[in-house]
């Protein structure tokens, strides 16, 4: 087995490499004894570590510290935003009995919404067009009866990298009295993040995830102004505005702040660098396989995701062959115990199911290099030839 460092890791959208600064921050903070909620000297010291981290993140995001809720990750933040805001809104106004989600959104968003059905809430899935962008007319129509309390739409799609027009979506939602949540876990570090609660074109709630930007797995953030009522999902000791109970996690907060500082600080330069690598990969794929379809080519895309459809190729075979060549890539869609599930994102975009079976996602990050792209382009021709032969296997007649 070759060492991890020798591999071309191109699955940063799944999880990216831990940033050294985040690891140092974590280890230093983890050595500080004390529960941040305790009143004694040790507790205050731990609280200081946590507050430093929160203040730092507030500055980076342009929001007060009190707007930041630490969670166990992006999934929990999405659950809290959607479930918390929808249930609280309905309590105040029983007419707000629906939530709206982009049909192409992440399962953490879609399932959070669908889990509200047993509570009597309705879920309205807003269609996306061929480029993966929310249909604005359909959104307006879905919100027109004033029953929707919250719209959730990811800023950057985790499979295709498509960037939603969040200002436009926010304006439409706000016109109909709905709140706006955005899952920005794929956006952080790659495109500029929106200011939260800054007017009609700005979302009201935003999810971030630590391990997508170089912090350890196990921490996320919900940016949530206190004036937006949220019904807690986790109850207990009343920490974090009694909206999210659980012992305050200073080490993870410190690591998240360090990673966020690096991600946001380097964002412009890194976006340009990754865009060049993505362009290299795009051009290489178009050259070596003229049949390949580059997903959402005409739409705004995050620079870190290259998503391609290889007609007639078997996805699982491609991944195996690339893996053997030292390349970590992904089908993009969810995988259950090793079996790649068909992509609801591509289905929502109207991509033919057969074509979707040849989908590959290469996602770049802060450790990606041009040499890694070269390696992918060198390995792809043979992998494609073989993966196409596999798909070409005629099924024997029963």
């Amino acid at each position: 087995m070759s060492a991890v460092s020798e591999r071309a890791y191109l699955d940063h959208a799944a999880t990216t490499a831990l940033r050294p600064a985040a690891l140092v921050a974590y280890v230093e903070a983890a050595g500080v004894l004390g529960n941040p909620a305790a009143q004694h000297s040790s507790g205050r010291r731990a609280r200081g570590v946590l507050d430093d981290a929160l203040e730092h993140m507030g500055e980076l995001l342009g929001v007060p510290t009190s707007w930041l809720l630490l969670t166990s990750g992006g999934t929990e933040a999405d659950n809290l935003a959607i479930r918390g805001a929808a249930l609280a809104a309905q309590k105040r106004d029983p007419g707000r009995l629906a939530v709206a989600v982009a049909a192409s959104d992440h399962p953490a968003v879609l399932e959070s919404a669908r889990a509200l059905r047993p509570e009597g809430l309705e879920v309205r899935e807003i269609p996306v067009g061929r480029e993966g962008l929310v249909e604005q007319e359909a959104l307006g129509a879905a919100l027109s009866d004033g029953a929707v309390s919250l719209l959730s739409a990811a800023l950057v799609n985790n499979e295709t990298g498509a960037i939603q027009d969040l200002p436009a979506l926010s304006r439409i939602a706000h016109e109909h009295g709905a709140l706006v949540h955005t899952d920005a876990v794929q956006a952080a570090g790659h495109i500029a993040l929106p200011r939260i609660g800054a007017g009609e074109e700005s979302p009201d709630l935003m999810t971030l995830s630590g391990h997508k930007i170089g912090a350890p797995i196990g921490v996320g953030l919900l940016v949530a102004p206190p004036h937006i009522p949220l019904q807690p999902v986790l109850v207990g000791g009343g920490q974090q505005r009694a909206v999210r109970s659980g012992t305050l996690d200073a080490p993870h907060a410190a690591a998240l702040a360090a990673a966020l500082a690096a991600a946001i600080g380097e964002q412009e330069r890194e976006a340009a660098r990754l865009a060049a690598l993505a362009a290299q990969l795009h051009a290489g794929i178009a050259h070596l396989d003229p049949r390949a379809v580059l997903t959402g080519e005409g739409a705004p895309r995050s620079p870190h995701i290259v998503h391609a459809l290889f007609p007639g190729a078997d996805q699982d075979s491609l991944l195996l062959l690339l893996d053997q060549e030292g390349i970590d890539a992904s089908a993009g869609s969810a995988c259950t115990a090793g079996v790649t599930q068909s992509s609801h994102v591509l289905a929502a975009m109207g991509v033919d199911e057969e074509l979707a079976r040849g989908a590959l996602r290469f996602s770049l990050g802060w450790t990606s290099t041009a040499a890694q792209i070269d390696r992918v382009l060198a390995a792809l021709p043979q992998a494609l030839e073989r993966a196409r032969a596999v798909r070409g296997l005629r099924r024997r007649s029963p």
Partner: protein
Amino acid sequence: MKVLAAMSGGVDSAVAAARAVDAGHEVTGVHMALSRSRAQTRSGSRGCCTVEDASDARRAAERIGIPYYVWDLADDFHDLVVEDFLSEYAAGRTPNPCVRCNEHIKFATLMERALLLGFDAVATGHYARIGAEGPGGAPSLHRAANLPKDQSYVLAVMGPQAISRALFPLGGFADKAEVRAEARERRLGVSTKPDSYDICFIADGDTRGFLERRLGEAPGEILDADGAVLGEHRGTHGFTVGQRKGLGLERPAPDGAPRYVLDVRPETRQVIVGAAELLSTRVLVASALIPFEPLETGRRVRAQIRAHGEAVPGVIERIGEEIEVRLDAPVRGVAPGQALVLYDGDRVIAAATLERRA
């Protein structure tokens, strides 16, 4: 060689993969996901392809130190094995889905895919041996050293071409306890897992219930060999030639002897029953012949007609579109649809599908 090891998550395939590594091969583990709706965990010894099985296979591969992947062959399995199982029963025959799976999934779909992806051979945890006694020293298929576990019967449909691309690392084990002991020594974590029995896609083991749910009820008559109506049934697919239990007849035979299913006729929805003697035959007729070496009429062979049965001596009477074998002594319970495998000693010389009693 670059070897693809099929790993079910069970003891046998894990030890087989480890042995292929020991033999110096470059091994990659693959778990076939065959069920469209997988349960999370196993219950008892029935069923397969749960998420827990996939996870057991992954752990074993990790322990052995080989790459591991899951291949989703659920559609192929459904179309080629499950649908065939249903249509065969609907036609009054008695299919063996494990034989069918070996023929169409493991040594066809899986093997072809492996070869296209650059592998040289497929290793499985089957109990059988590969020799060099085929025509001109070609690879030949033999019974396993562990005779009670021998699976050459269900493997024979793979045919002679596939043998040259197959590895059966467990063929030399004398008994299953040794395999379990080796799994324990290798810390494969699956050493205490129960063996799987029954049909993997019928999780509760109730084949008749499964067939009834999928094929629906089609009531008809149960008759004796002379055409007298003895009772009724809910569907011919609930019956298989040679079956004695579950006939649902209230009146015993006049002579008190047990009655067996003699014939299943879905076209008229009739099930014919009668005494054991009427079930016996000396002549086997089988179609879809797969010869492993040139066969000639008059050749003495041993014929096996079910997975856990004895091979009985006989002689090849006729070879054409069908093959006919005359046995030295009559056998009972020849069910159309089951495999007929012919042996020369412990070597497989042909496989075919039983058609009817002559």
